[in-house]
C-alpha cells in the first residue's frame, strides 16, 4: 500500500510544532514530530498525536449552516439548516454593507492563532474601518506580559535562558513543563537544565505539573504576587545589597532624578530627564556624552535617583509583612532571595563564540497567573523588576525577550524612544505590538470597549459585555450590530460570567463565524462557515512560535508553511479565499490587499495587486518567495516543510547591544493617570485610579477581601494541563481518555480543608461563586494552598455538537464576576481569582 510522509505544521494549539504526517490512500495514518524542525526537534505532545481524531471527528461542520430559530440563548437550539456558500456569503455581505457607513458597529473576534486567519482578520477589520478587533482569546492571558515585555525587554514574551540559568523561579506559570510557546522545544531544555543542577523554584497556589518537577514548591495565596516580589526586592536591595549597579546606571532609568512631585527632573531646554554625574558632581541629561558615573544613590540637584526611591519604597515590604499577605514564611522568602542574589554572580561574564557577555544565570519567569487580577499589572511588573535589578535581561542565563530581534529574512530590532527608554519592540511582522509606554492620551470614549479610558492597555475585549448592558451609561449611542468570529470558543474562554456573555451576544443582531464543531459560541450564530482541519489547509503563518515565541538562545530561527496532507471535503473552502471574496463584495479588497502587503512586507513583484483575485496557494507562494528568495516558494516548502536560519550571538543575546534604557520607575503612569482623571470626571463614570503610580503597591483583589470578611472561605483559581492547552481538543476522544484517567475533570481541594468540611475524595460538591453555582467532583490533594480551589483545563461544555465533551468538568470563566470592579485599570485583565464556597 502506497504510504508517504508529508511535512506540515501541527494545528492543535497555538504553538504549531513541525510534524510529519503519514498518509495512505488519502487517509492519515500517523503523525510524528519533525526532527528537522527547531520548533520541537521531533518531540510531540499527547494533544498533537491526537490530532488525527479531530480530523475524523464525525461531528465536524462540513457545510455552511444558517439558524432557523430567531431566539438566541446559551441553551437554545438554533435549528440549523444547511445552505449554499452563495447564500451564506450573501447574508454576511448584506449585513456588513448595512453598517458600512458606521463600521465601528462591527466586532471581529480574531483569535485563530494556529493559522493565517488571525492576521488576515486583523487586516480585514482595518480595511473595513472598525476599531473593534480582538487580537486575543483570553480574558487575562497576555494582557500584561506582552506590553511589559515590549518596554522592558523588546520582544513579545519572556523566556528563561535555560541554556545557562542556574536558578529559575516560576511564578504562576508552568513554563517548559506544561505550557507556553515553543513548548516541545523548551521542555527538553528544562530537563537538561535540571539535570545539570539548575535549581527550579515554583511559586504557585497549586503544586501541579511544574511543581512536581521543581526543587521547591512555594504555595502562595492568590493575588499576592506583588507582595512576594516586593519582599524579594527588599531583601536583595536593602538587606543584602545585591544588585547590578553598573547595569542599573547605564542601561536603565535608575539614575533619572525624580522630583518631589514624582516626575523626572528635566532639562529646562530639551525637556530630557536629568542624571547626577558623580564624576564631576553635575546634573546632566541622560544622553550627555560626558556622562561617566551616573548616580543611582544619594541625590542630585532638585531630585533623587529613581533607584533610591525604589529602594525606600520596597522597604515597606519586609518578609514578615509579606508573610501576612502571601502566607509564604518570612524565612523562606529570605532564603530564596539570598539564593537568587548569590546565584546571579553579578559582575561576571561569559564568552560565547568569541563574544564576551554579562553572565547572570538567574531569572524570575511569570505568565498567566500574576496577570489575571484586578491589579494585574502591578501583580506582574515587580516580578520583572527582580530580573532588571540583577541585570539579568537578554543576557546568558537571564530572562530573555522572545522574537525581539533578527537579521534575516528581514532586519527587526527594538529601538529606544521617548526619554531614552525602550519604546519600540522588535517584530518580524510589520504590525504594531502591545505597548505600555508611553501610552495614549485618554479621551472621551467612542469605542464600545472603552479603549480610550485604558491608555496603557493593548486589548480591550473584556469591556464589551459590560458596556453592552448599558451603552448610554458610557456615553455611547450605538451598539455592536455584527460579530464575525474565528472557530475559537469565545463564550467559554474570552470573558467571564456567562449571563453577561449571553446578554452581550443576544444584543448583537447578526453573528457569523467559522466552526470546526458546533461549540457554545456557534449557538449564537446566524451563519456558520465550515473551517478546514489543519491537515487540510494552507497557512503561511502556522502557529505563533516563529514570529513571537521561538526558543531563545542560539537555536536556529525558522519558518514553516502549513500544507494540506489530505483533501478537504469539496464543501469546505480555504478561509483566506473566503475573506478575499467578502472583502471584494463589500468593496474593500484593495485596502485589504494594501494591509496584507504591509503586514507581510510584500513589495513588487510579490505585492498583491488591487483588482486581482488570487487562490490561497498563490498568495502564500508570493509571501514565501518575497521572504526567502525565488527558489524558496510554496513548492519548496511543500517538499521541505521548514527553512532554518542560524542566529549569531548578537541576535541571541541582544542586551549588550540594545541602545535603549529599561525602566524601573514608571513616571508615565502618573501622567496618564492625571489625564485620565480629567476625562473620567466629565463622564460621571465611577473609576479607580489607584493603579496609576510609578512604583508598585500590593492592592488586594475582591476575593482576598471577601475571604478576609468571612463572606467566603476559599478562592478558586485556574490551572493548565499540557494535554488540554490552547483549544481544539475537548471533543477529541483520545484527549478525553487522558482527562478521565488523570482526574482532570475534577476540581482540586486541599485534603485537610476537605476533611474539615466532611468532604471525601471523589465526592460530588457544589462550587458557588458570586455569579455561578456548579456541580463538580472533588479531588483531594496536599498539593494546593489551603485557601484555594483549583479548576483546570477548559471544560464545562454543553453544546449538542460536542457530545464527548458535554457535561464534563467545570468552565472556570463562568465563575468570574464581570464588572468594572474586577477589571485591571491598566491592562483590562479580568480578575481570575474568585471567592467561592464549596459544600456537599
Amino acid at each position, binding site marked *: 500500500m502506497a504510504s508517504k510522509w508529508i511535512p506540515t505544521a501541527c494545528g492543535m494549539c497555538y504553538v504549531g510544532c513541525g510534524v510529519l504526517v503519514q498518509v495512505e490512500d488519502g487517509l492519515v495514518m500517523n503523525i510524528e514530530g519533525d526532527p528537522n524542525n527547531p520548533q520541537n526537534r521531533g518531540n510531540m505532545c499527547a494533544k498533537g498525536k491526537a490530532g488525527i481524531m479531530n480530523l475524523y471527528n464525525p461531528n465536524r461542520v462540513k457545510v455552511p449552516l444558517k439558524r432557523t430559530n430567531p431566539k438566541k440563548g446559551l441553551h437554545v437550539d438554533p435549528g440549523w439548516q444547511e445552505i449554499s456558500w452563495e447564500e451564506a456569503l450573501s447574508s454576511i455581505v448584506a449585513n456588513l454593507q448595512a453598517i458600512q457607513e458606521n463600521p465601528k458597529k462591527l466586532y471581529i473576534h480574531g483569535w485563530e492563532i494556529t493559522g493565517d486567519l488571525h492576521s488576515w482578520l486583523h487586516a480585514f477589520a482595518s480595511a473595513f*474601518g472598525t476599531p473593534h478587533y480582538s*487580537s486575543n482569546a483570553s480574558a487575562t492571558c497576555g494582557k500584561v506580559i506582552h506590553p511589559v515585555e515590549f518596554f522592558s525587554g523588546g520582544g513579545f514574551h519572556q523566556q528563561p535562558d535555560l541554556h545557562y540559568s542556574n536558578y529559575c523561579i516560576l511564578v504562576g506559570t508552568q513554563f517548559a513543563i506544561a505550557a507556553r510557546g515553543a513548548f516541545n522545544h523548551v521542555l527538553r531544555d528544562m530537563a537538561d537544565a535540571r539535570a545539570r543542577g539548575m535549581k527550579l523554584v515554583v511559586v504557585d497556589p497549586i503544586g501541579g505539573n511544574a511543581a512536581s518537577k521543581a526543587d521547591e514548591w512555594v504555595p502562595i495565596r492568590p493575588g499576592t504576587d506583588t507582595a512576594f516580589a516586593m519582599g524579594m526586592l527588599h531583601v536583595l536591595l536593602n538587606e543584602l545589597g545585591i544588585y547590578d549597579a553598573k547595569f542599573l546606571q547605564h542601561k536603565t532609568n535608575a539614575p533619572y532624578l525624580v522630583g518631589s512631585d514624582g516626575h523626572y527632573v528635566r532639562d529646562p531646554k530639551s525637556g530630557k530627564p536629568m542624571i547626577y554625574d558623580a564624576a564631576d558632581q553635575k546634573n546632566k541629561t541622560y544622553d550627555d556624552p560626558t556622562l561617566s558615573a551616573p548616580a543611582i544613590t544619594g541625590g542630585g540637584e532638585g531630585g533623587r535617583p529613581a533607584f533610591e526611591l525604589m529602594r525606600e519604597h520596597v522597604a515597606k515590604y519586609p518578609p514578615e509583612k509579606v508573610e501576612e499577605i502571601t502566607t509564604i514564611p518570612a524565612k523562606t522568602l529570605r532564603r530564596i532571595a539570598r539564593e537568587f542574589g548569590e546565584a546571579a554572580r553579578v559582575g561576571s561574564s561569559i564568552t560565547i563564540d568569541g563574544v564576551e557577555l554579562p553572565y547572570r544565570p538567574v531569572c524570575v519567569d511569570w505568565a498567566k497567573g500574576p496577570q489575571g487580577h484586578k491589579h494585574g499589572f502591578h501583580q506582574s511588573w515587580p516580578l520583572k523588576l527582580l530580573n532588571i535589578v540583577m541585570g539579568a535581561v537578554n543576557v546568558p542565563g537571564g530572562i530573555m525577550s522572545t522574537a525581539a530581534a533578527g537579521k534575516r529574512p528581514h532586519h527587526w530590532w527594538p529601538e529606544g524612544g521617548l526619554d531614552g527608554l525602550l519604546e519600540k519592540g522588535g517584530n518580524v511582522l510589520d504590525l504594531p505590538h502591545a505597548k505600555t509606554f508611553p501610552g495614549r492620551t485618554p479621551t472621551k470614549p467612542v469605542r464600545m470597549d472603552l479603549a480610550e479610558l485604558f491608555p496603557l492597555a493593548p486589548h480591550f475585549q473584556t469591556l464589551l459585555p459590560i458596556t453592552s448592558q448599558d451603552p448610554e451609561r458610557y456615553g455611547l449611542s450605538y451598539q455592536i450590530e455584527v460579530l464575525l468570529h474565528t472557530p475559537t470558543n469565545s463564550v467559554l474562554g474570552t470573558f467571564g460570567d456567562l449571563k453577561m456573555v449571553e446578554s452581550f451576544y443576544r444584543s448583537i443582531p447578526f453573528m457569523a463565524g467559522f466552526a470546526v464543531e458546533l461549540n457554545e459560541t456557534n449557538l449564537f450564530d446566524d451563519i456558520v462557515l465550515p473551517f478546514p482541519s489543519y491537515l487540510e489547509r494552507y497557512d503561511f503563518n502556522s502557529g505563533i512560535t516563529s514570529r513571537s515565541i521561538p526558543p531563545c538562545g542560539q537555536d536556529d530561527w525558522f519558518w514553516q508553511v502549513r500544507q494540506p496532507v489530505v483533501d478537504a471535503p469539496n464543501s469546505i473552502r480555504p478561509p483566506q479565499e473566503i475573506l478575499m471574496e467578502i472583502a471584494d463584495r463589500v468593496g474593500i479588497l484593495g485596502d485589504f490587499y494594501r494591509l496584507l502587503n504591509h503586514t507581510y512586507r510584500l513589495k513588487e513583484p510579490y505585492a498583491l495587486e488591487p483588482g486581482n483575485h488570487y487562490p490561497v496557494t498563490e498568495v502564500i507562494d508570493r509571501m514565501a518567495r518575497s521572504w526567502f528568495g525565488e527558489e524558496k516558494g510554496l513548492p519548496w516548502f511543500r517538499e521541505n516543510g521548514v527553512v532554518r536560519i542560524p542566529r549569531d550571538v548578537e541576535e541571541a543575546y541582544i542586551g549588550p547591544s540594545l541602545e535603549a534604557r529599561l525602566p524601573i520607575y514608571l513616571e508615565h503612569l502618573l501622567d496618564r493617570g492625571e489625564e485620565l482623571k480629567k476625562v473620567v470626571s466629565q463622564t460621571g463614570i465611577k473609576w479607580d485610579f489607584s493603579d496609576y503610580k510609578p512604583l508598585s503597591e500590593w492592592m488586594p483583589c475582591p476575593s482576598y477581601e471577601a475571604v478576609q470578611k468571612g463572606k467566603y472561605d476559599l478562592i478558586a483559581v485556574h490551572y493548565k494541563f499540557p494535554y488540554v492547552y490552547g483549544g481544539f481538543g475537548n471533543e477529541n476522544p483520545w484527549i478525553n481518555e487522558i482527562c478521565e484517567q488523570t482526574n482532570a475533570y475534577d476540581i482540586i481541594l486541599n485534603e485537610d480543608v476537605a476533611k474539615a468540611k466532611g468532604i471525601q475524595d471523589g465526592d460530588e460538591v457544589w462550587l458557588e461563586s458570586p455569579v455561578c453555582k456548579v456541580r463538580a467532583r472533588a479531588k483531594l490533594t496536599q498539593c494546593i494552598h489551603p485557601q484555594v480551589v483549583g479548576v483546570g483545563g477548559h471544560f464545562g461544555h454543553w453544546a449538542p455538537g460536542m457530545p464527548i465533551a458535554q457535561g464534563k468538568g467545570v468552565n472556570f470563566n463562568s465563575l468570574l464576576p464581570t464588572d468594572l470592579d474586577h477589571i485591571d485599570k491598566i491592562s483590562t485583565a479580568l480578575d481570575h481569582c474568585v471567592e467561592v464556597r464549596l459544600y456537599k
Partner: protein
Amino acid sequence: MAKADLKENAAQASEISVKVRFMGDLRAIVKKRDLEMTLPTGSTVGDLLTFLCDSFGDPFTSWVFSQPGKLHHYILIFLNGRNVKDVGGLGARLGDSEVEIIMLPMFEGG
C-alpha cells in the same frame, strides 16, 4: 502652515488636491472613509496631519501622535502607495496626492 480647506472643487493653481482614505481605528473618529481637500502648494504630510488634528480635535490628535511630531507606532501613512517612512516621513511633500492614514489595532495577545 497656510489655511487649508475641505473642498469639492478643483484645486487652484497655488493649491494641491489631496484625497485621504482612513482605515483602521481612525474611522471611528473621522466617521468617513474618504476625504478630499485642498492644501497650499508645498504642504507636507505633517501639514496635512496638523490640518486633520484641527478638524477632528483631541481624539484624533491623541490617537495619531504620541508626542508632538511623533506618530504612535501603530499609525501607518502611505503617500501615493508608498510608506511615508520611505519617502521623507512627516516632511514628505504632497503633490496632487492620495494619502492613506491607517491606525492598526495592536496585534497578538494571549
